[in-house]
């Protein structure tokens, strides 16, 4: 398959942003010579130097905390968290400082920073390397949270995230890092926009990040059975592009939300509640949710059973249609 991988697309996007603005710098563990454990920053330290691509001490609170200081000094730090499960030591700074800084300063301070997090499971990893923790951040006012699902978005969204003066949590679907695709010449959408990536008429599937591909595959399979599924890639998880979702569900009358995170208290609940509120009289079935089970992420040998897959999505579609 021709094209660029998601990992390379983020790399190119970072490079473009750094070329454009000398205040952009990268901070993280092993992002220098190694190029990051996923090689997303490969070659950037070589080209931009150690002052702009900083191998930090091994301390996530320290990384985000000093990045805040850098941003206060006028830089635009892009932080890499090595794996989703290692963002928690930095949680305090993200929740109490990053998210609130602009509001607490009555707009006198802007804190343009991006926190990149490879997210989700499916790579057979050990504990803490497969977490889907977006709901913690989407529930945090003051942050923007986005997740790319394909190389084109990876390339453009990372640049948009860096350009935004608001702090952004930028999720990268790690098990799709090596999926290839074309990069469009220009950004087709704004950072906050969802994309209808496959139109359909019977049921709306809502997904983001790694589950977009799963939903597209499910839609493909459903098509063979004569069911027409519309697939929406949310792209922005906070804020959510409500109009695009509402327009779709009012048409289809049915929605299934799919994410890897456990469903209880996950973003799916928010989407379901919003859809109920906005599409109450169009709904022919309750909004259903397909997600991880409400248990800690299991050992790798069980992750296929834990994670939503094509079958579980189609099962939910059938249940929706049975209403």
């Amino acid at each position, binding site marked *: 398959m021709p094209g660029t991988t998601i990992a390379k697309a983020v790399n190119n996007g970072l490079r473009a942003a750094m070329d454009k603005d000398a205040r952009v710098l990268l901070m993280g563990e092993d992002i220098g010579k190694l190029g990051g454990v996923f090689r997303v920053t490969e070659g950037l330290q070589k080209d931009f130097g150690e002052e702009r691509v900083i191998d930090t*001490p091994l301390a996530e609170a320290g990384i985000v*905390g*000093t990045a805040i*200081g*850098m941003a206060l000094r006028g830089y635009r730090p892009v932080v890499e968290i090595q794996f989703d499960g290692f963002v928690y030591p930095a949680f305090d*700074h993200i929740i109490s*400082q990053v998210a609130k800084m602009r509001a607490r300063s*009555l707009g006198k301070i802007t804190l343009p920073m991006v926190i990149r997090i490879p997210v989700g499971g499916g790579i057979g990893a050990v504990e803490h390397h497969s977490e889907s923790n977006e709901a913690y951040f989407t529930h945090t006012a003051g942050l923007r949270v986005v997740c790319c699902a394909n190389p084109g978005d990876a390339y453009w969204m990372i640049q948009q995230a860096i350009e935004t003066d608001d702090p952004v949590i930028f999720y990268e679907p790690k098990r799709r890092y090596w999926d290839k695709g074309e990069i469009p010449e220009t950004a087709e959408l704004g950072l906050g926009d969802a994309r209808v990536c496959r139109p359909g008429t019977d049921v709306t599937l809502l997904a983001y990040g790694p589950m977009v591909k799963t939903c597209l595959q499910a839609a493909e399979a459903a098509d063979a059975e004569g069911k027409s599924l519309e697939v929406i890639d949310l792209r922005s998880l906070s804020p*959510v592009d409500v109009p695009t979702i509402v327009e779709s569900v009012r048409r289809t009358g049915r929605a299934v939300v799919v994410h890897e995170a456990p469903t209880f208290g996950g973003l799916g609940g928010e989407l379901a509640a919003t859809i109920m509120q906005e599409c109450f009289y169009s709904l022919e079935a309750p909004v259903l949710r397909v997600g991880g089970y409400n248990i800690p992420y299991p050992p790798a040998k069980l992750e296929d059973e834990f994670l939503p897959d094509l079958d579980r999505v189609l099962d939910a579609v059938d249940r929706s249609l049975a209403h």
Partner: protein
Amino acid sequence: MSDTDVAATEAEREPRSELDRLTAPVPAVQDGGPEMVQLLTPEGQRVPNADYDAVLESLTDDDLRGFYRDLVLIRRVDAEATALQRQGELGIWASLLGQEAAQVGSGRALKPQDYAFPTYREHGVAWCRGVDPLNLLGLFRGVNHGGWDPNEKNFHLYTIVIGAQTLHATGYAMGVQRDGAVGTGDDLRDTAVIAYFGDGATSQGDVSESLVFAGVTNAPVVFFCQNNQWAISEPNERQTRVPLYQRASGFGFPGIRVDGNDVLAVYAVTRAALDHARSGQGPTFVEAFTYRMGAHTTSDDPSKYRVSAEVEVWKHRDPILRFKAWLAHEGKADHEFFEAVEREADVLAAHIREGCLSMPDPAGTEMFDHVYVEPHPLVAKERAEFTAYQASFEGAH
């Protein structure tokens, strides 16, 4: 009452549990020890010091009188704010009583281009940075979270989460390095950063991480720890069993203890540390050995956990009295000057009281207006709903 008496009272404080005896805690430090830099004794006598006397040479008598004025005015601001809190005008107030010298000495050591990261108690530093005390009162009144422009004053917003600001300061200092604003020899350009924090804060992982980052990057930052002996109700020995200034060496840079109630010593030591940072020689940890004379905040009741004899001892080490004695003795200031400062303090207090009482409440919509820079549909929607909802009441009246 002598120090020895207090030590006795100290020991009686509580029947030691078996575990307590087992772990043999160092008794609460009452005295900074021989390693403490002191240039003025509590009685106002000047102690010569080979390392730091030179730093003081650049100070004019005007500067010195200015220090005195700062000390008195900020203590008055503090007293007025405490009174206003008692009268229900402030939600809470965190008093700096006893720590004036630590704050004025370090605050006055800063150059305009330097940047300070305070806790919630740095009213004296705020004063030195030109922040209107009314801004501080506004915060404690609940009108806003500070209200000054940090970048105008080079003084960050108060940080309440213990220790967090030390990392911000270190990152800011790393930015200063990247701007090439250290070690150039240009007095107007070379920049240092100072991070304030308390003795309790030293236990927080954030503070240690900031020492790691500063050490590894050699960032131009001074870690200024006001050891006021207490973290709310917990005495210093709940946080450490060795003097705090010693923390720095294991992170690869110098630590120094200074008499935090001696404005000259604090000025000299902080100034030297800032110069060291500005010239590209990296971080320093300064422990200002001082005492929180009042309650932790107006919500606190120290009688629950500390003996008044301890407070008495520290009264004899008052930062203003000793400096006044020295100024007078040296003939650097006279009765008239002292009187004038008192009058200025009265005026300031009245101004603050008035300003506080007449401080307008914020508009409700303000809470929506600064959350994001770029448009945000959910916030916009809620702001509109909020406005409509509020209007519905106005209609009803």
